[in-house]
């Protein structure tokens, strides 16, 4: 009697494809495939990532469809989209006696923060990178100085800028005073709050954009610069028409990282405003989510906000990944 395993192995090995030139492919048994043979190396990390990242995301999505609130276990038998209806239109959900306001305000703030922060950061990073790229002296020193803020945690930056924005002793107001603009309330000023947060984040992360652009600039062969010069292009024209278009990849990659950072500005707001309450004009989805989940115990509703935030992040990352895929760079 033949061993069933041997039979199986033989069956698997029998599968051959006829190539166009009449021969057969060299593929042997499935067990001989590269992907299978290398499984001990890639499988464990993939299972771990699958479980703890994608598994957690999937669980969170399911959780957002429940009515889970307070203590106990979520009830997975009755799933519905009530939390999303509440998130978009407000109202009194079945799991609460209180009216819950919709998330538009914090969603809008999130988008404003994301766009203003990323765009300014990129522009500033590009200018810095071009300047640093001019073969200046102490280039390494400048590079380090510009990059250093990024090594600070959000908590440190928030406390630092809280001090900088101080109406009476802060450097920002001293500077404004020197140019004749009277002391301005910044931290609790509804018109400036979000801008102040964005400004501090730009200070922290434009160095990162600079580094990415610098790497991009260095990857452009010197001949491109020389050719543009020979053709009589001015410096401005040379960068605008020849160099910057080649920085597309660098721009997109920096943009993705920066937008993801701006979605995570929670720690900054938490430290600056001493809690989950930055106030309506600086409230972002992340702070709203934490308030719902951890102050109120509305786990399912907090999960729904998390999913919305996740979709926003995905909406930014997906086109990028897709374009990379199309260009064969992934």
């Amino acid at each position, binding site marked *: 009697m033949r061993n069933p395993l041997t039979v199986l192995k033989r069956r698997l090995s029998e599968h051959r494809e006829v190539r166009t030139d009449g021969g057969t492919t060299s593929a042997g048994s499935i067990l001989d495939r*590269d992907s299978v043979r290398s499984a001990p190396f890639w499988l464990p990390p993939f299972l771990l990532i*699958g479980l703890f990242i994608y*598994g957690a995301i999937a669980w969170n999505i399911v959780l957002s469809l429940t009515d889970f609130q*307070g203590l106990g276990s979520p009830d997975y038998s009755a799933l519905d989209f009530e939390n999303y209806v509440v998130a978009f239109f407000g109202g009194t959900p079945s799991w609460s006696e209180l009216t819950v306001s919709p998330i538009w305000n914090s969603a809008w703030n999130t988008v404003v923060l994301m766009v203003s922060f990323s765009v300014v950061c990129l522009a500033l990073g590009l200018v810095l990178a071009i300047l640093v790229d001019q073969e200046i002296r102490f280039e390494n020193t400048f590079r380090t100085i510009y990059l250093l803020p*990024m090594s600070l945690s959000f908590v440190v930056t928030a406390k630092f800028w809280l001090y900088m924005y101080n109406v*009476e002793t802060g450097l920002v107001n001293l500077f404004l005073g020197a140019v004749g603009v009277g*002391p301005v309330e910044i931290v609790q000023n509804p018109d400036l709050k979000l801008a102040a947060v964005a400004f501090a984040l730009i200070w922290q992360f434009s160095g990162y954009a600079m*580094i990415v652009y610098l790497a991009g600039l260095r990857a452009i062969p010197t001949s491109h610069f020389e050719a543009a010069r020979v053709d009589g292009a001015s410096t401005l024209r040379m960068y605008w028409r020849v160099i910057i278009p080649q920085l597309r990849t660098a721009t997109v990659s920096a943009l993705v*990282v920066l937008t993801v950072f701006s979605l995570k500005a929670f720690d900054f707001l938490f430290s600056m405003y001493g809690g989950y309450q930055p106030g309506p004009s600086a409230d972002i989805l992340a702070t709203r989510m934490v308030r719902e989940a951890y102050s109120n115990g509305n786990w399912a509703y907090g999960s729904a906000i998390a999913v919305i935030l996740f979709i926003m992040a995905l909406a930014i990352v997906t086109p990028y990944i897709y374009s990379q895929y199309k260009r064969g*760079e992934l």
Partner: protein
Amino acid sequence: MLIYPMIINVGHGHLLSYCITAKIGRFRADTHGDNLMTDKSTKLSRRTVLTTTGAAAVTGLAGCTGGDEGSGGSNGNGSGGANELELLHAWSSGDGNAAIAALIEGFQEEHPDVEFAEEPVDGAARSNLDQVVLNKLQANDPPSTFQLWPGKNLAKFDGAYEDIEDDVWTDDLKENYLAGPQEQAQYNGSYVSVPLNIHRINNLFYNTAVLEEAGVDPASLSSASDVVSACETIAAETDAVPFAHQTSGTWSTVQLWETILLGQAGIDGYEAFINGNGDAGQVQTALESVVELSEYYPGDSSSITFTEANTMVMDGDAAFIHQGDWAAGAYSNADGFNYGEDWGQVTYPGTSGSYLLNMDSFPFMANNPSPEATRQFLSYCGTAEGQVRFNAEKGSIPPRSDADVSALNQFQQDQFEDFNAADNQPPSVEHGLAVSPAVKTNISDAFSSFLENYDAAATADALIGASN
């Protein structure tokens, strides 16, 4: 080529950029080299990978949900002997840490057989502690007891307590706790926790020298508007800031407003508000008083913390501060800043007869890992001796009206006298006793908006709407 590692390493952005810095020299020469990644075999295995990932996600999900139901059976009778008492608290440093150590030491003198698995939850933030407890309860592994604001805040762990009226809340406790604290120890009518200490919210602290310079007599103030006129005098007569206050976070302003509301609307108006039947007019009037006072805040109130505001009073840079009596803890620790001489305290003008409560308590958790030891410990927390030990270090006062407070400092003794003489002991809104956690979040939301625009009418609407 360059982009690939950056996406993966979003979380460690800064570390990574250093790698990039180091590599810049090499990138200058290396313009191409992406072909490797587009190899057909790589693509093929990527599909395999995606499938596997999907499968893993499903498995993970199943694992998680399955685990949840499975843990129900274990009943959380975890490690340690039956007598090991798991006490969670956030008093990980300073006076709080000394206080809990003194309490445990006193308890162990009487019950040397009880072991403590004491775990200060770091970060000193109460919200962090609540989170740890929530996680433990979700995993069906409750602690024996933990530091918790009682009152309506007990709703946060609804259903996780056990009644201790028969074992701990003896007639001795019921006779010696005043009505206010006793009510806060109950949840839905049953005794589930033992209050350990009381901080008072309706205080007005002052720097004596500054008030003398301005010619203001604190004892003569009798309403919230008197405080405003006193501030006006101080602003005119001295260089000091009349009213030290921080506005970067909402909590100080909520405290101030609730104190003024208590003074203006009286105990009935205050209780109506916390029960969800508040009068919009009264709420708005109290907010308008806060707006008037805000004229006398430090110019940089939005950039400072409570500690800095309090230091202004100690340094003679500010005249008044409204705070809970933990502010006095800083004064007691300062050299040459003495109670009665350099600083003083009056009941916030308008609220005489009330002792606005902020308390910590220890609840008895159902499914208790050490039921007998926990009952013994909670009973000890209910004794005058245990409470005096704790509060001597903490700077608050014992909830038992029969406690012998001669071991406490003069300020605490005076507060204790006020406490025993008070007509009522209403619970604080900001400190979780008066309203459920979700309503408190709505109130904080309303105040985060108030701090931006000081719009009393809109905030009053939001506050009235906070409980429905």
